């Protein structure tokens, strides 16, 4: 006995409808999962970007320090970097827990913070470089000035000593030295 013979046209239509419903439900489920995966991926990218921005800010701070920036201002930037570090950790934690929205928000905030730190560090670098440059010019410029002072000092010192010696010579009197035989 064939299956065709058993199915009424209404039954066949119902079967087709049921199949379509199941199909659409499966498709929806897959789409939702994809959307979730997409959101997770985007958030993970945000955390990656936050890490990259943090590293950029760190490098900028190190360059400012190497240029001779003030230690207190560097310390303030380092404090802010540590705050960003803590927030990135928090975002990573939330991401692992599946709290994508909050993780993404925190990551975005840290990106802004890191950008701010990097910009400030670049300004500090420019300022410190200029200051160090002028300080070096001043310090090296002092060498010929000091040499000039020494030269003038030595010159007049020499003249004074010479005059003193000449005066001493001029004041000298000829004395007759008594020979021991004459004394006897």
């Amino acid at each position, binding site marked *: 006995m064939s299956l065709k013979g058993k199915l009424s046209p209404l039954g066949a239509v119902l079967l087709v409808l049921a199949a379509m419903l199941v199909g659409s439900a499966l498709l929806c489920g897959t789409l939702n999962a994809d959307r979730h995966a997409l959101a997770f991926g985007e958030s993970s990218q945000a955390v990656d970007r936050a890490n990259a921005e943090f*590293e950029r800010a*760190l*490098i900028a*701070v*190190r360059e400012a*320090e*190497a240029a001779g920036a003030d*230690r207190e201002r*560097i*310390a303030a930037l*380092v404090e802010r*970097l*540590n705050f960003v*570090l803590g927030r990135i*950790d928090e975002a990573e934690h939330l991401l692992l827990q599946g709290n994508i929205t909050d993780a993404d928000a925190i990551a975005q905030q840290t990106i802004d913070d890191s950008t701010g730190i990097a910009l400030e560090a670049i300004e500090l670098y420019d300022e410190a470089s200029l200051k160090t440059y002028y300080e*070096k010019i001043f*310090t*090296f410029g*002092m*060498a*010929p000035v*000091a*040499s*000039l002072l*020494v*030269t003038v000092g*030595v*010159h007049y010192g*020499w*003249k004074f000593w010479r005059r003193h010696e000449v005066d001493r010579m001029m004041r000298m009197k000829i004395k007759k030295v008594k020979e021991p035989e004459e004394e006897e």
Partner: protein
Amino acid sequence: MRRLSEDMKRAAVIFISATIIFSALVYVAVTPRPKEQFFQIYVLGETRMAERYYPDDNPNIPVGRLVQWYLGTTNFMGSVQYLVIKVKLGNSTIKAPDDINYIPSPAPVLLELKKVLMDNETWEFPFAWIIGEIGEEGDMTYATVLVIKGKDGVEVQRGRVGALNGYNFRIIFELWTFDPVTEDLIFGWRAGGEQRAAWLQVWFNATKPQTS
């Protein structure tokens, strides 16, 4: 051409000599002296001294007993450094970090502690942990170690590892730093063209809670 007087000649010689001497002195004063670049890493016991690493000085740690240490590191690199202390849980068979080839231990990471440190700055913090539970499978004893946050007693991380009869577990502390050349974290640090590494480990045994 008019010949220079004796005075002028003398003055010129003195001026040139003094300029050379002063320039050399300024150069020495301005140029920073190269100093040894390194990190210091240490672990202290519950008294904040290099003693009493175990409760009652007994390395057999019972389940649920809090172990309090203090972990510290100092930056002597001469610049701002970003460092990560990786805390790993191992046993006697897991490879220790390799100082010669700069290979970190393959033991599972229990916790990563990150900080940006200024030059000459020390970062010291409490590190408390307990053995949460132990399970036995044949000769192997598996210990689950929980790291506890110092202030509020909240568990921050956990890791599980097995050791023969519960003997010779170890907690390894590895120092990783951010390398500006590769722009990535490296095990140890780079100074003067060569890489160096620093790590610590403390051994312990896991024991079952005593039944009364």
